[in-house]
């Protein structure tokens, strides 16, 4: 389990390890990036260092090269569907936090169908379903019923819900779920306990090993991520790189994806965000690409149009589009969103931008036939 690796070095030591890198280390890492092989972990850490900013253009060139080599000129598109904003956990930075007195909603079967039809009509075949952390309302049976409906519309279904036991993951895979996304939020234990006040989510280690349980259960894709802005970004990037690398080595049948969301405004009064500049954010992404060239790098509509336009294909490979973060939002529900999005372009406009850049927007890159689930009914 990843926690065994995690326990070997503290968060502050991890941060110091990054910041102890020198200009020589950075130059040596860049030099290695020309060898045609992925960087090793120490080389990856060097490129996270602020001094690597002087070499950003060179990093960009290498990142573009790797991305093209491994993913070609394609961008895989997906859309999120929020099934519920019910949440029993209190995470101080999240709009769904139990403490926030917002209207709560969980989609019923007909509402799930209504949402599905909207997304399907937009050409979307890869779906990410999300819930808050309410183990009773959005329980396993609820999720199974939802997936049974959704799989008649979508080829690929991934879940971004509360962490589960391996056995429950296996049941959802049996229903037709292909991918698992579990963002750690922060890998800093101190910050984690400070910002996760109540509820199941308070158990950091259970969350840390959730991707392992997903790997053991047999998900074909597993996404990990850190929410930049909660704790020291160097410590987070050390951990995220370490975690993704560990998973890709251990669960060799599973594709590992990485996401690097930055904090966005949300319901509540959280004001402790640690600023991560565009330049830093881009440097982190380039370093990840040079370290893990086979991992999909996922970018959501949290980022600006400007950033998304320029990072598509270099190094970003998977993007959400036209997202609504409120349950029922696509088919005309109330405003119950989890956080503010930045890029609200319609799919048509977004894909046109991609095509102008010479990138191919991919709507379908998986088939239900792999999972032996029933044929499409729409």
């Amino acid at each position, binding site marked *: 389990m990843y926690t065994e690796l995690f326990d070997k070095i503290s968060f502050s030591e991890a941060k110091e390890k990054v910041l102890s890198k020198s200009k020589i280390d950075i130059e*040596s890492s*860049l*030099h*290695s990036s*020309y*060898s*045609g*092989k*992925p960087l090793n972990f120490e080389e990856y850490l060097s490129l996270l260092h602020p001094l690597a900013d002087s*070499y*950003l*253009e*060179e990093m*960009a*060139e290498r990142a*573009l090269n790797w991305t093209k080599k491994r993913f070609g000129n394609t961008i895989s598109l997906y859309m999120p569907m929020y099934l519920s904003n019910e949440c029993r956990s209190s995470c101080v930075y999240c709009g769904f936090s139990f403490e926030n007195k917002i209207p709560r909603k969980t989609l019923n079967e007909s509402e799930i169908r209504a949402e599905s039809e909207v997304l399907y009509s937009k050409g979307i075949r890869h779906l990410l379903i999300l819930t808050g952390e309410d183990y009773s309302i959005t329980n396993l049976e609820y999720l199974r019923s939802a997936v049974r409906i959704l799989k008649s519309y979508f080829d690929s279904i991934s879940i971004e819900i509360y962490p589960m036991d391996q056995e429950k993951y296996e049941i959802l895979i049996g229903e037709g779920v292909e991918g698992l996304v579990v963002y750690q939020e922060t890998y800093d234990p101190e910050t984690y306990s400070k910002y996760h006040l109540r509820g199941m989510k308070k158990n950091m280690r259970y969350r840390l090993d959730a991707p392992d349980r997903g790997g053991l259960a047999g998900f074909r894709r597993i996404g990990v991520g850190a929410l*930049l*802005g909660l704790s020291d970004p160097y410590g987070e990037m050390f951990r995220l790189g370490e975690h993704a690398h560990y998973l890709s*080595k*251990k669960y*060799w049948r599973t594709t590992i994806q990485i996401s690097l969301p*930055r*904090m*966005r*405004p949300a319901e509540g009064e*959280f*004001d402790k*965000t*640690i*600023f*991560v*500049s*565009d*330049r830093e*954010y*881009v440097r982190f992404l380039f370093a990840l690409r040079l370290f893990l060239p086979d991992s999909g790098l996922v970018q959501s509509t949290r*980022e*600006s149009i*400007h*950033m998304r*336009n*320029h990072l598509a294909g*270099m190094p970003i490979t998977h993007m959400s589009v036209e997202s609504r973060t409120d349950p029922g939002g696509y088919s005309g529900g109330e405003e119950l969103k989890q956080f503010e999005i*930045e890029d609200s372009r319609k799919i048509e406009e977004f894909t046109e931008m991609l095509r102008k850049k010479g990138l191919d927007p991919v709507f379908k890159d998986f088939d239900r036939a792999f999972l032996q689930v029933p044929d499409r009914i729409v």
Partner: protein
Amino acid sequence: MAQSDDLIIAGRRFKSRLFLGTGKFSSGASLEQAIHSSETEVVTVALRRVDLSSTEDDILTKIDRERILLLPNTSGARDAEEAVRLARLSRELGGGDWVKLEVTPDPVYLLPDPIETLKAAKILVKEGFNVLPYINADPILCKHLEEAGCATVMPLGSPIGTNQGIRTLANLEIIIEQSNIPVVVDAGLGLPSHAAQAMELGADAVLVNTAIAIAKDPAKIAYAFKLATEAGRISRLYSNSGISTSKKASASSPLTGFLEEESRNVHGVI
């Protein structure tokens, strides 16, 4: 070499990363000299060639089992059943729990059978053996063997006894990159430079037999292999391996110029 760079297989620590095969030596004395000058700590012997129950076996008497791991191999086995039988016999006769699993149904090229090897590995691991399987350089097979609980994988560099060096480069690179257990490049290494190349690639160890056993002076060549193995390892650890030419960034920053374009920068600020 620092203590921390010791090779660990199934919990046992080795300073030497050169394994020695014992077939093809001209005499017990020649083998003994090669063992001495190579400073090897792992010597593999064909179960079909030795008499484990004898204290006077010509090969076995040359191996100091206090210092050197005797690694019995199942060479000659044509399928999983035969290999398992040999391994069990070895243990019964005091050969210990270690086995180099070889299943080679083809008597001409002696290429390993992946299906039977995996089958035998699963059985032997369950029976408590430390299994070191000899295989073709097949990255997927390596992952299956790793999952089965093998102690190492031992992919070939080129067909056994051919001295062609590393002809499976592309696959060995993938195996080394993906493996969570030690990778020992076995078979085909004909020159010390081949051993150095394998170590530079990132192999954890190499196994050599023919190139040493049939050399004009096996002891001298065994020493050369020792040095080459160490040189390759040091090179792997401390140089920028595989470097081609570096390319400097252009002044106009065409790929990252967008970071200067927009002064508005509110991301992450609430």
